[in-house]
């Protein structure tokens, strides 16, 4: 065995292609292991490195005071063809460092940093959130639940996109329900900003409160807090003596449908951070990199509602992360199919219809950028009972 390992190591070294480039991946305090935002950034970077023969160095931050020195250190080494900053929290630090190293190429996910050497990759989260909102609204009406829920992280402008889109989608879904069934739906929205992207216990407590009041689904807009939300959903189901939802969780960023055995996360609003990172590396590799804003929406697969193929991809992701094993694969797929098939077909068709209308530009989902704009959207779609 040992000799075999050694031989394969030697072979691997010998067959290693010439290094085409090096990328530094700088993460915020959330760090790896969230099965979501940061892990997605890692996934996309890893895939690009495999495809283009690049090498990745991953840099985690212990506190947010580390952002600036981490970025500056990476630039100082001069060893990286591209430095990717994963997360808007690194924006201030990058604004400081980017002009100090005008020849260093940078990319930042989820924020706009206006320097000629920075590619800013942002997402149209409101479009995907509208789709899962419509789904949640229709589910609540169909199953007779009084509420839909959402647990958000820190109240920041990026999250306004999610909240605004979700509100719009729920409203659209409830109208659709009335149109299809001719019945009036009385469904409200339970929403809370927990003020954290890391305190999983808070996510669980917030989700428990919403489920107790009768939320049909809790949308996770707080990255790692989804682990707590899923625990709350699982506990609620166990109390009712069932395994499959409703109530459900709605996943975020990554495809989280595979979590909870495949029958508790009804869908995920995928924000393809991996596509963003992959694209940035591809651009540098092909020599097409230039500073500016790259916006990824439904149109260019930057955001999407999860489908079957995504489930398959992300089961691999989960196995790789060690969250599940190969033995779970078949069961998760079966559970997931059963969960989705139990939901009336017209609901899925309605979600598709909304997607087509957003893609064609017939429907424009509100995209609040500031607190004032958010308040206006909240006033327009209050969703109280």
């Amino acid at each position, binding site marked *: 065995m040992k000799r075999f390992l050694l031989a394969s190591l030697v072979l691997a070294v010998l067959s290693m292609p010439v290094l085409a480039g090096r990328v*530094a991946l700088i993460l915020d*305090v959330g*760090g790896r292991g969230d099965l979501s935002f940061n892990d997605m950034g890692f996934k996309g970077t890893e895939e690009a490195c495999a495809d283009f023969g690049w090498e990745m*160095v*991953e*840099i*985690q931050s*212990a*506190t*947010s*005071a*580390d952002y*600036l*020195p*981490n970025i*500056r*250190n*990476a630039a*100082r*080494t001069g060893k990286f063809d591209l430095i990717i900053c994963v997360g*808007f*929290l690194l924006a*201030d*630090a990058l*604004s*400081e460092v980017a002009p*100090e190293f005008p020849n260093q190429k940078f990319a930042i996910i989820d924020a706009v940093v206006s320097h000629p050497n920075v590619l800013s990759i942002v997402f149209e989260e409101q479009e995907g959130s509208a789709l899962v909102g419509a789904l949640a609204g229709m589910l609540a009406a169909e199953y007779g639940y009084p509420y839909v829920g959402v647990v958000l992280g*820190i*109240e*920041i*402008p990026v999250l306004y996109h999610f909240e605004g889109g979700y509100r719009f989608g729920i409203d659209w879904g409830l109208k659709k329900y009335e149109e299809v069934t001719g019945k009036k739906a009385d469904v409200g929205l339970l929403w809370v900003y927990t*003020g*954290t*992207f*890391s305190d999983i216990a808070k996510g669980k407590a917030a989700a428990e409160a919403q489920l107790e009041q009768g939320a049909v689904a809790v949308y996770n807009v707080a990255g790692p807090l989804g682990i707590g939300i899923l625990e709350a959903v699982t506990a609620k189901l166990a109390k009712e003596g069932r395994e499959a939802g409703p109530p459900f969780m709605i996943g975020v960023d990554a495809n989280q449908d595979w979590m909870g055995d495949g029958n508790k996360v009804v869908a995920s609003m995928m924000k393809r951070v991996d596509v963003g990172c992959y694209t940035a590396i591809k651009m540098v590799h092909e020599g097409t990199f230039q500073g500016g804003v790259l916006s990824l929406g439904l149109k260019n697969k930057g955001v999407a509602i999860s489908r079957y193929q995504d489930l398959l991809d992300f089961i691999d992701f989960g196995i790789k992360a060690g969250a599940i094993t190969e033995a779970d694969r078949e069961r998760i797929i079966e559970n997931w199919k059963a969960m989705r098939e139990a939901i009336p077909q017209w609901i899925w068709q309605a979600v598709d219809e909304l997607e087509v209308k957003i893609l064609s530009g017939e429907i424009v989902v509100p995209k609040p950028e*500031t*607190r004032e704009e958010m308040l206006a959207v909240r006033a327009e779609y209050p969703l109280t009972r």
Partner: protein
Amino acid sequence: MSWLWRGFRPILESVLAGLIGLGAGALIMRAWGYHPWSAYVVLFKESFGSGYGLASALANATPLILTALTFAIGARAGLFIIGAEGMMYMGAMGAVALSLFKLPAGIHALLALLCAAAAGILWGLIPALLRAYRGVHEVISTIMFNWLSHFLAFYLVANVLVDPVRAEKTLSVAKTSRLPLLMRGTDLSLGIVVAGFFALLLYVFLWHTVIGYEARAAGANPHAARYGGVSPQKTVLLVFALGGAVAGLAGAVEVMGRPPTYAVYSGLTNIAGFGFDGIGVAMIGRIHPLGIIPAAVFYGGLQAGARLMQMEAGVPFEMVRAVQGAIVLALALPELTRILKVFGRRLKVRREQA
């Protein structure tokens, strides 16, 4: 010669402990298949081997010197003040709050520092009074006050001092109230001078004033001190006030002196931990105000170099932290055992009396 030995023994112990810690860290890395030698070369080259590294080490040391002073002065007076963390949050809040006012440069920064120190003192007042007049143990009360401070600061960051267009942070400290950078393109600000000054001040206080002598006497032997006419109440209040002031300043120098944001992030992610790290630094510095300075710079250097260990030596973050932990723990051990010994002896005396 015994005085020479007394002075050198702690240094010798620390050096030995540091080597043991480095060895333990190397073993950890070795066991997981990383190359300790190249990792340590990067660690020390990037922390103390370059101007930029040294500036980073000093910048990291700035708040730690101050929070370590809080623990050290307490420990010297026989108090275990674990509350620097909470006092430091309040200091940071105070410094940010003062930015709401428009004042001329210089005076503005000075007032912000004063405000932060006052906030730290106020935060220590209740545990101090409880200890002085009701005998409530300060370990319990200051830990509880850390949590109170944590959630109060959470609230203040999200609701009162929040930046209306950037909800993930507080308002940034006004330009007139920032501590200038000592070196362009680094994080090193005038804060290090403030920290060094207070370390010196507390050294003079403890070893060259009557009242400081009384405080140390109360720490060394509370019964003898009381017999000698030292008021334990006065000592407790004074020590808490000084400790609160420097801890408050720790929060202030960080938000007023650390680029780029000059603000407190939601979740306190850019200031959380300095208070607790300060306890470790105080131990490494043998709870001596002057020993704390090199201890904090070393600790800050470890943090600065650790960043590059990920980048240049490919050692993953979790491993870097484990190695850091091993080194810090080893360095803190001599003082920790001494403190525990004193503590145990006192418990024994108390039991025999009972």
